[in-house]
């Protein structure tokens, strides 16, 4: 048909929450918008075809927009029509491509004299302003003089908006934290392992910014290992021209919570009372419990301490490094043993006296480059001896303090 313009397909533009492509046909503007509702499950994609027209165009013509939402050619998810706008809506997959197509039709109605062998342009856009480009003519030729009554609809063109929906990323920590049973948590501990995948499964390219590692780097899933330095990391899943991200806050250990588990006296109770000392087993939990430090290596870096007993003898505890680790729940145990000493150590020449000394047990963890980082430098393990009954106990001072029971004296 002489009056039909060629399809006008503009380059697709992806802009969420207001993506627009426009067709300017004379005084008619056609544009498409779309919006992706990612808070819905499944996601919803809404698309709009809209037009505005000048007063003259509105006066002389009727307009129609047909809007189609498709996931592949000729596979329609929704079709709607309207005079100046129409909305389409459908459930969509993350990580897929969709098309919103708007078609614009204009109808003109002509009543008037007609004469043979004359041409009439009942659309005559050029009469009413705007540029005249393309082939806008709808011509008809009358063979006899008469009054013509004619209504003709022409297809002005279409717009295609291509929409790549970003992939949806889901994650699950390998460890369930004692203080947060939700493995989809995005606050994690140093070195934590998180399994990350697209949902539904789509092959993507994985990358990470802010530190840490992802492996493998392509596929429907990856394993993210957080760095051993507190930071914020973002995992990216990219496909085509779109991508999704998931950010993780990576926390360092902040303390150790201790409680007394059990006592384990060092011998048979006197009399006769020959030895003093205490041994207790403590339950320890690395804080915060909302993340897991399962993958972190810890150590006690005991520097060694010395003291003088009430009987003026010298006492000492040598330096020692004790590596340790926690389960997924951040728990471990700590055995504190004063060892046995002769009861005379707390005799000052005239009586048994109260006495105590403290062993420093600073805590360190190993970072990604293999260096040891001090994180609880003030942890101490005091030993106390009571003059009145020659009993002893051990204590852990960490984030909180926990005492063992008074024990001994022993045969």
């Amino acid at each position, binding site marked *: 048909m002489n009056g039909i313009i060629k399809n006008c397909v503009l380059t697709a533009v992806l802009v969420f929450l207001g993506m627009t492509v426009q067709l300017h046909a004379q005084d008619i503007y056609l544009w498409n918008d779309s919006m992706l509702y990612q808070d819905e499950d499944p996601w919803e994609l809404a698309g709009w075809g809209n037009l505005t027209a000048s007063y003259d165009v509105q006066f002389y013509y009727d307009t129609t927009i047909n809007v189609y939402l498709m996931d592949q050619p000729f596979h329609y998810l929704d079709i709607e029509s309207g005079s100046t706008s129409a909305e389409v809506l459908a459930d969509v997959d993350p990580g897929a491509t969709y098309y919103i197509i708007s078609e614009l039709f204009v109808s003109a109605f002509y009543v008037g004299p007609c004469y043979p062998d004359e041409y009439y342009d009942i659309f005559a856009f050029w009469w009413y302003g705007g540029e005249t480009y393309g082939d806008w003519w709808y011509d008809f030729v009358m063979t006899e003089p008469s009054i013509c009554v004619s209504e003709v609809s022409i297809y002005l063109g279409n717009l295609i908006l291509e929409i790549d929906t970003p992939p949806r990323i889901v994650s699950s920590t390998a460890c369930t934290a004692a203080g947060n049973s939700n493995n989809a948590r995005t606050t994690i501990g140093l070195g934590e392992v998180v399994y990350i995948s697209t949902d539904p499964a789509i092959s993507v390219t994985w990358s990470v910014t802010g530190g840490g590692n992802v492996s493998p780097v392509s596929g429907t899933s990856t394993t993210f290992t957080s760095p051993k330095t507190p930071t914020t990391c973002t995992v990216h899943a990219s496909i085509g021209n779109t991508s999704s991200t998931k950010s993780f806050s990576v926390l360092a250990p902040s303390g150790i919570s201790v409680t007394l588990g059990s006592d384990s006296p060092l011998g048979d109770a006197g009399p006769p009372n020959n030895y003093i000392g205490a041994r207790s087993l403590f339950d320890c939990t690395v804080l915060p419990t909302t993340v897991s430090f399962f993958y972190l290596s810890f150590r006690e870096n005991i520097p060694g301490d010395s003291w003088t007993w009430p009987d003026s003898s010298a006492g000492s505890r040598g330096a020692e490094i004790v590596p340790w680790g926690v389960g997924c729940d951040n728990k471990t145990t700590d055995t504190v*043993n004063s060892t046995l000493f002769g009861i005379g150590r707390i005799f000052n020449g005239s009586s048994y006296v109260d006495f105590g000394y403290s062993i420093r047990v600073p805590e360190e963890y190993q970072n990604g480059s293999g260096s040891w980082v001090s994180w609880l430098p003030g942890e101490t393990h005091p030993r106390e001896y009571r003059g009145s009954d020659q009993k002893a106990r051990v204590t852990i001072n960490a984030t909180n303090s926990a005492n063992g029971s008074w024990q001994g004296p022993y045969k």
Partner: protein
Amino acid sequence: MHRYHHSSFVSIMSATALFAAGCARLCYGQGNLDERLAAIEMQASKGAQLGKLETEALKLIQDFRSPADTGKVYAHIAFLYARPGANKQPTKVIAYATMALKYPLELRDSVRIYLDLGSAITSKYLTIGPSECLSHRREIVVPFLSGLKLLLDNGVPEEPVPSPGVMKFDVPPDAPEYQQIVREHAQQMEARKRADALNELVHLRFVLTNEICGLYSQGTDAMAELQELSSQILKNDAVVIALLAKTKAERAKHIK
């Protein structure tokens, strides 16, 4: 010992560089193969040029000539190129992974190589277009299935084993109970190490299974192809049935 002699020349030559570039660079020329590969990997994590590290790693084959060592070198070069950020060169991963698989490898390295190989083939096609992966999934899934086969043959379970903490202790070294607690601590360390090593393989089984299912849950239905390939490679009916069921469930998540 012969190997150390041979590499001492490299150590001497690089001694000057030590002062300028730090210990890690010198470590290329020292230690056993694992240590030298670890030094190269450390440089990669610090952003060193991969081409240079590749050359350094290839030189190790002159010092470590056994088939197992050669395979390990190729495998580690593949790992270097499989790091995030280096994925613009999937052909390097494919080339080195393919070479590594011609040599005897440790189980963990073999499975990782199969995983990285499948991932690199995926990368190669993703760079052409998102749908290219689906057109070539037959090619992609074979390494994943081969890695899974290795794990199954070695009895790697589906679920992780418990991996408890390792105790702290504060016992004076001169205490009579000291040796006993040190032994107990060492046993816990060893148990943890064993559990972690096994659980790493369990995790790889989980990842490979998900990659296989994820690949066939997309696009047009190719369950018959998955059944054919998994039966052929795994030769394990129970696992094949589980794979197909999981893939079917994953497919159901797609709206189309």
